[in-house]
């Protein structure tokens, strides 16, 4: 089953070629690793854009597919392909990757002055290792988004941890080993639950279908046609296995505490990769696996999941308000945002799902921008504490301006990309679970509080003595941040291209759990003569006007 040009494989291989090229560099020229990495990621980006153009919005559900037997013994395939959701996320990944690499330009350098013991401990570090790991991460993420085989997905899902562990553990901040180990163990714990569920799914499938398979499309078709009928208990258990793994990855409250540590200790570019790209695998997993494979469990658990999401939205925002460390603040804001994303996913409406997917893309750019500007400031000041800043905008106006814009995108200012997605999520939730949406909406007020308070204390106000020597954005930093901000504005004004290929996939995903979106209680004027049949949503206050007249 192969359709079209094997884009996913090609995109996954290009960064790997970069890795090999970097490994072949002699030590004397190891600084060239940056250039090679940047080149490879740029080529990948161009490739993914071409793929997006070649993608047919109203074509087959999965396009550019490839399918080879991998491990015959238990029906594992090398099966890849993209639907609109995966395509959007791959696009985001490949666009963010060169930005991350450019942002990490000096993060992989060997420390010039370092005591001997530390030099020993970091013997392996150096730009070659750093950029190889970044490129490897990119390959794995593309693979995860493109995988159409449950087992293949699982393998890549776990493999992603490896380069990220070393990136944090070898190149991170002072508490890097704590953060890296916490990240690894937490994710592994979730991954093991998922492994149990993956095996359980295989066993259930082999019982009912005769031959077990990990082929996602085959499983989907079998569930759709009723050939594979999982009992409610099975669905619940398997759903939870997948869900907890993805909830840790995403992360949803209360599985979030690894994120602030990992994100604040990771080097800036890595943090962008981690929070912006890697964590999307969690929310992507909800859409790809939790909902279509276990529709009954998804419907059954959705209200509970949404409770977690709403708590996460408010909790993340409130804790972000109280943070003293800039990077932790951004990390907690992400916890809040992931609550929104999952909320949209589990609303099972087209608006919610499309909004959530768009939110995943936008959050990558928005939080990426925030991490980057915080990184810029932290590099200059040598501290991440809010109290150590003040009046940055006066000294370095461009730095202040980009910080403000990044912050505004985090608080979903209309006109910036995050607004469209956040509003769609809330709207999609509102139509089915009114009060969840209402409570979650307060999160946008809290978002304004943490962003603006941070802005007030760092870039506004009197110039702090240590800030006086700040240089404004360098050329490299400008090239790092400008494309992201441009994308944020562009997608805020014109999100149609992305939405156009997300929509059909979301509709197909949701069609498994829900017959149709809720219908407005008052039909449009052209239909006023029809009988008002679908009053499934209303406030419950008062009677129709017509009756009181």
């Amino acid at each position: 089953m192969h359709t079209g040009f094997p884009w996913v494989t090609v995109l996954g291989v290009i960064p790997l070629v970069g890795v090999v090229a970097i490994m072949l560099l002699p030590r004397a020229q190891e600084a060239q690793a940056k250039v090679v990495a940047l080149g490879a990621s740029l080529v990948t980006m161009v490739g993914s854009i071409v793929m997006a153009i070649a993608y047919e919005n109203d074509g087959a559900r999965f396009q550019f597919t490839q399918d080879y037997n991998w491990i015959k013994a238990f029906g594992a395939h090398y099966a890849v392909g993209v639907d609109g959701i995966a395509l959007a996320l791959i696009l985001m990944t490949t666009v963010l990757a060169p930005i991350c690499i450019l942002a990490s330009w000096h993060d992989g350098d060997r420390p010039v002055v370092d005591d001997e013991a530390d030099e020993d401990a970091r013997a392996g570090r150096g730009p070659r290792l750093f950029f190889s790991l970044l490129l490897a991460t990119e390959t794995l993420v593309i693979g995860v988004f493109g995988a159409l085989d449950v087992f293949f997905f699982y393998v890549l899902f776990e493999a992603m941890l490896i380069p990220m562990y070393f990136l944090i553990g070898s190149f991170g901040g002072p508490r890097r080993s704590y953060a890296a180990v916490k990240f690894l163990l937490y994710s592994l714990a979730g991954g093991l639950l998922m492994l149990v569920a993956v095996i359980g799914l295989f066993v259930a499938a082999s019982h009912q279908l005769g031959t077990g398979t990990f082929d996602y499309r085959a499983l989907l078709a079998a569930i759709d046609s009723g050939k594979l009928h999982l009992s409610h208990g099975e669905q619940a258990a398997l759903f939870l296995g997948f869900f907890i793994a993805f909830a840790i990855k995403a992360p949803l409250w209360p599985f979030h505490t690894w994120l602030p540590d990992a994100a604040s200790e990771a080097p800036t570019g890595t943090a962008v990769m981690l929070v912006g790209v890697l964590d999307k695998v969690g929310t992507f997993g909800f859409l790809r696996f939790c909902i279509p494979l276990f529709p009954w469990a998804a419907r059954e658990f959705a209200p509970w999941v949404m409770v977690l999401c709403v708590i996460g939205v408010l909790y993340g925002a409130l804790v972000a308000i109280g943070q003293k460390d800039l990077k932790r603040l951004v990390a907690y804001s992400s916890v809040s945002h992931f609550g929104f994303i999952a909320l949209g996913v589990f609303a099972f409406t087209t608006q919610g799902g499309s909004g959530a997917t768009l939110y995943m893309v936008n959050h990558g750019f928005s939080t990426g921008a925030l991490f980057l500007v915080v990184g810029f400031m932290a590099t200059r000041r040598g501290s991440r504490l809010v109290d150590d800043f003040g009046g940055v905008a006066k000294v370095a106006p461009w730095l202040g301006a980009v910080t403000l814009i990044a912050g505004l995108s985090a608080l979903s200012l209309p006109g910036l990309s995050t607004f469209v997605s956040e509003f769609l999520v809330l709207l999609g939730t509102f139509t089915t679970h009114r009060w969840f949406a209402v409570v979650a909406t307060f999160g946008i007020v809290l978002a304004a509080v943490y962003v603006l308070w941070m802005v007030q204390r760092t870039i506004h106000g009197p110039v702090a003595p240590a800030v006086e020597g700040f240089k404004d954005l360098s050329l490299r930093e400008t090239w790092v941040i400008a494309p992201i901000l441009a994308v944020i504005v562009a997608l805020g004004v014109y999100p149609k291209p992305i939405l156009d290929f997300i929509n059909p996939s979301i509709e197909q995903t949701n069609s498994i759990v829900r017959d149709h979106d809720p219908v407005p209680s008052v039909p449009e004027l052209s239909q006023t003569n029809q009988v008002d049949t679908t009053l499934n949503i209303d406030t419950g206050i008062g009677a129709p006007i017509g009756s009181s007249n």
Partner: protein
Amino acid sequence: MTSTTTAAVQYAHATGVFKLTFLLILLPAIGAAVLLLGGKRTNAWGHLLGCAMPIGSFVIAVIEFFALIGRDGGENRQLDQHLFSWVPVAGFHVDANVLLDPLSICFVLLITGVGSLIHIYSIGYMEHDPDRRRFFGQLNLFVAAMLLLVLADNYLVLYVGWEGVGLASYLLIGFWHHKPSAAVAAKKAFLVNRVGDLGLSFAVMLMFTTFGTVAFDGVFNGASSGHARTGTMTAIGLLLLLGACGKSAQAPLQSWLLDAMEGPTPVSALIHAATMVTAGVYLVARSGAIYDVAPHARLLVEIVGGVTLVMGAIIGCAYDDIKKVLAASTMSQIGYMMLAVGFGPGAYAIGILHLLTHGFFKANMFLGAGSVMHGNNDEVNMRRYGGLRHVMPVTFMTFAFGYLAIIGMIPFSGFFSKDKIIEVALDHGGASGWIFGIVAIAGAGMTAFYMTRLMLMTFFGNKRWPRDVHPHESPKVMLVPMAILAAGSLVLGYLLILGGSLQHFLTPSVGPSLEVGAHTISPVVLSIITLAVVAGGVGAAWWIIGRKPVAAEQAPNVRPYAHATRRSLTGDAVNEAVFMRPGQYLTRALVYFDNRGVDGIVNGFAAGVGGTSARIRRVQTGFVRSYALSMLGGALAIGTTVVLLRVGS
């Protein structure tokens, strides 16, 4: 119930000159982009570009206005221009369209006209500021967002403009962001507005679930079709009102406006007097079709308007800061407008009328205040002024026009608009009519009092400015816009009311004016009563303040009510006690809970595993004999188990 059974709302497609509507927004947007992204390169000519863009928009607006008048009445005057599809999701399609109709053209003319004047004024006012280019960029951004707000043809795009002006307001209040007070005021303005925006966004969601669309025509037709529940419509109305309260600084979300005076004075004139703060009135007027079927919501609009009217007036009496007095006055005047639009179909036009005249005379006075500050080293305390009419004659004259307009003196513009509101309130009938009417008349008296107080303390009496301050008249580039606005303050009211021209013009947008058979009190008598009350206010002010020299310092010990008034009726204290402090405790507690509670469980689990293994580790003593003992014990255990299983089976 006053269900308007008008024909379904239908917008014509924009043709000809109306195809330029999008340029109205685009021009200032381009200006903002060039000035904000251009950097220092644009310093030399930035302010000129900044002025050219709103003037360009104004020219287009004037052309379109006359083209609009040239068309027949009725729905042909509502012209929709499709730009692009903005959010296309199944079931939820939102297009980026611009709608030009009589209501929006009124606002467009006000925004671009007054806006252009204030831009020109700013050339002089901001001359010595190193960041003048940024100022013009952000001012242009505001104009673009405000035009987007009034030109939107659906609630979501309106929401974009709504928050866009909030952003511009945030940026401009915090223009001198190195001042902590400015940075805090900017943040406060944005946050309070966000609370209001919550209401607006809920309203939009509720509209979507009710009508399946957020476009004006769809929602209005749905509302007037009578199929929606009254409760739903009331909810939408109240939520919209919440949004309007935030943006228009109405009770209970009024507290940000006084702090917003930290911004440069032209900003106060444009954003916090003439245009942005009136967006709430626009929203209510625009959503008339919804309020028509939600009488409870409409009553609350009236109440909010009435309360704020009085509240603003009281606050205005207490402050010594000239800008804050004007800001309080703005609150109070917007209260009038809210009161008017709360009265329903016939009164929308009157609310808009007051909005337009207020836009002129309040901008005029703010610019005058700016001129006074400009000449007094940016001093805002009126107790440091006194007798300025001699040194700043032009400023005094223009300010006086604004003063006369706001207290409602014949034949200044305020007389026509305010008188109409009082008339409508009393004509409304019933207890509420009487209450609101009396409140409106009392408000007029109080307005006269605090504005006279301001005039007396600033331009009359003894000279109290410090020795190193040498008040001087402002440059011409500032005086000319003031003069134009002063002229507007004089004639605009009469022009607009002439033959009910504005009311007729606005009919396609807000419905026809209600023909009232009999007035509760005849208009002439009412005017005389009102003028008498105003005269009383002026006299009281002269009696209390004008007769004796003004002290250079505020009296420290005053009665509690005066103290509360000086603290803007303790609004800030309430906010602090109810929201800020509990919020701070909550966040601190949650941060603690997150570190010790949620993360504590995670780390505790890890520590538990680590501790257990550390303890189990001790079993590895290194003594071979211990290991051998465990081996033998294990062999014994396994063997015993096997034997027992054999025996058992």
